[in-house]
């Protein structure tokens, strides 16, 4: 049978007699979009989780600053103790959402924690991906302590992570090995796709430390 008559016959059959394949076509068109939206919602949910966790980390950091002017051992408080305590407390909270990659530069040791769950090597990742700034110290003559936390939240959902990274302000996120983020060389060079989340927390301090 020659080819043209056969194609013509087939087209006629499809048009006249059957609709099989239409749904497949619709699926082929709709699936990528729907799948993308699904992934986007998943990633967005994770980002929301990240917001919550970073907010909690900021609270924990402020909580640590609140008491960090009292030295753990006899003697006067060492300079920088508040910064170290704030970062340690914040990273402790952020452990679950940080990468377990212990090779990240800038990682810190978990030693010195009041309560430390041994074997959790995410501590290094959290230290590398998090920057903690004490905005109002316990030793300051203020009614509160404040901590500002920046965390490079890992975007782990494929495809959409880059889209989320690009959608945000280029100055505040980066992706890939050559991303344009300027906040943390460790996470930038690691090739991780991140979105920087920023949260601050303030706690009342009804006493003066000094």
């Amino acid at each position, binding site marked *: 049978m020659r080819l043209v008559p056969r194609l013509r016959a087939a087209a006629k059959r499809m048009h006249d007699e*059957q*609709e*099989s394949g*239409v*749904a*497949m076509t*619709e*699926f082929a068109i*709709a*699936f990528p979009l*729907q799948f993308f939206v*699904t992934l986007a*919602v*998943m990633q967005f*949910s*994770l980002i*929301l*989780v990240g917001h*919550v*966790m970073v*907010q*909690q980390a900021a*609270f*924990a950091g402020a*909580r640590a600053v*609140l*008491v*960090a*002017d*009292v*030295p*753990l*051992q*006899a*003697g*006067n*408080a060492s300079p920088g103790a508040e910064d170290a305590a704030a970062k340690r407390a914040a990273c402790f909270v952020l452990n679950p959402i940080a990468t377990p990659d212990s090779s990240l530069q800038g990682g810190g040791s978990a030693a*010195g*924690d*009041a*309560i*430390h*769950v041994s074997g959790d090597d995410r501590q290094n990742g959290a230290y590398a991906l998090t920057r903690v700034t004490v905005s109002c110290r316990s030793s300051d003559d203020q*009614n509160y302590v404040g901590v500002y936390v920046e965390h490079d939240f890992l975007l782990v959902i494929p495809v959409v992570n880059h889209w989320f990274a690009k959608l945000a302000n280029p100055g505040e996120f980066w992706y890939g090995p050559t991303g344009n983020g300027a906040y943390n060389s460790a996470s930038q060079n690691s090739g991780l796709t991140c979105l920087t989340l920023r949260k601050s927390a303030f706690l009342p301090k*009804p*006493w*003066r*430390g*000094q």
Partner: protein
Amino acid sequence: MKITVEGLVRAARRAHEDEEGSSMVFGAITLFTLALFTLMVYVVGINSSARLQNQSAADSAAYSGALVQAEAMESIAFLNDGMAYVYYAELRYTIDMIVYSTLQLFHQHDDWVNQYYPNRTEPDAGPSPGTAMEISVGPQLNNPGGRAGQNYSPGLEHGGNEPPDYSFVEMGQTQGGNGTLFEERYAYAKQRYDQLVPRGRQWLKDIHWAERIILAATPAMVRKACVTVGLANGAEAVAVFPLDQYYRVNNDGSVNTDAFEDGSGQGNQQFVDAALAQRYQTRGNPIDQQQQGQKVPGWFDDRSGQAKANQGYEQTRLCWNKRDWDHTEQQSNGQAPGPGVYDGQHDVAADPYGPSGHWHVIHTHLIDLLDPITYSVVDVEDWYGISPSNQLAHDYGHGTMDGPDAGQHDPVANSQTELPAGLDQYAQQGLVVLDPAGNANGEHHMAQTCPTCAGQGTVTHKEQGPDGAEAMFNNGQPFSVFDPNDQFRPRPIRMKAAAFRLGVCVATFRTAEGFDATIFPANDFGNLAIACAQIGVRDPRQDGRDVVAVATNIQGTQAQLTNGRTVNLDTTSQEDLYFGDQGAPGLRFGARLVPVARELTWPGTGASSGGAAGQGLQTLINGNDWYTSPTAQSGTSPPAALSNLQNFINPAASAKSFPQ
């Protein structure tokens, strides 16, 4: 319908050919995924919120408990200060009583002299080196010590350097005038001593026990504050580190000495401790309205509350005047008695402080002669041929205690010199007696001892002294702050440096949040938060946000604080445990949150061996001090849901230990 193979084949073919619903399946999967993630966000968010709330609950609870603790300490410090002030007032009332009772004795003495020998009290004109003059005591002359131109100065007799202030101890107001000043002051002093000193004793006792009630109730009040605040902020159960043993008060009023001591007066139960006695002698007080307190006189023991046993209050009253000293009184022959007339008794060299207390009197007396048979008074001329009109003799009635001069008044022993010639033999026969109704007729110089000072020249208030003339106005008992029949002594509760370690450590627990038992169930560990707060020395500031400095190092009786201050907590320190107000030495207390992983946060056994934080956490979390109601009388075992977390975190091993 009968099911046949052909029918099934047709149905299968229809199903294969019908593509309706395929997108529904895909949509369902998508929606399920989206719902799952949405729930994840919800669960994470609600758990995070709960965690923050739980930590806030723990913080608030610990801070509230420590505030209660700080208020308790401050209350005790304030009561100690009140105890010291009441005791100081008691000291002064008692000193008042001793001084004014003695001075009142002088006043009576002066009245007696003024009544019977008014010329004795006249001050002689012109100073005489080395002599003292008797000065009339009147409302304008506050000079009971007999020192011309000087006011009374407590402690002067003992070389004290207290500032001259006659009214040092006087708290009441006197009207004065008409010579009643001493009587009034004595009356006021006696009134205060009789009424206020017993009342003050009761006050001291009340304050003493009030402090102990506060101390004993502190752990329960702390616990109630912690549990109330913790539960109100969302916790399901609250654990409070047990502090009861450190605040224990025994039935006899003694306290547990781990963190406190009860001011035992350095082991002597008959004394109050030195700091209590010294408190208002060294700081300003409302009595004096001065910056510096007045010290009590040197003869008074401020710790036993009465005059020193061998150094009682003593005032010397000079019972002679310049004429006595110079012996310028006329003798019976009209001649001035020059030096040496009474040699041995008025020898200035032998007695540089002057003659013993006496005065010289000039007097004349008649004598009676007795019938040798009937011993009745007879006419002298008839029997003896001697006119008695110019016969001189002495009367025994000049004093009840004529002392060393008594012989001068004895007409028998001195008949040869005192009686006219010819009567000596009759005197030896006992026939010469003094005429009790005789009138003065001529003068005779003699010395007579003072009936008040008994010839000692002094009037002394020595409850336990040997002096014959003691001012004993208290029925033989020494004037004292304390009842001699009551062994009670006020004991201020003192703080040891270890009291700064009594951290209020709180754990709050609430179960984890989940969406459903199957879909996103709650985790098994629950939510545990720990917070510790501690008392610290508070430095009040104008804006109300005071500096609160907690201890960073405790060595012996000293505690070093975070602000660099070192607090001395020994038994003589005015800081321990008094209310530091208006610049006075003492302490104020506040509270603040402190790190959990800190040796000094936790009291008890870890102090010397290290690991106090680990042991403390172990006690706190695994102990039976969990509360689910603020009114619960005792704690319970940890919530069952906590067991998984306990096993997981192993509090004793996970808390950092310190080699301190």
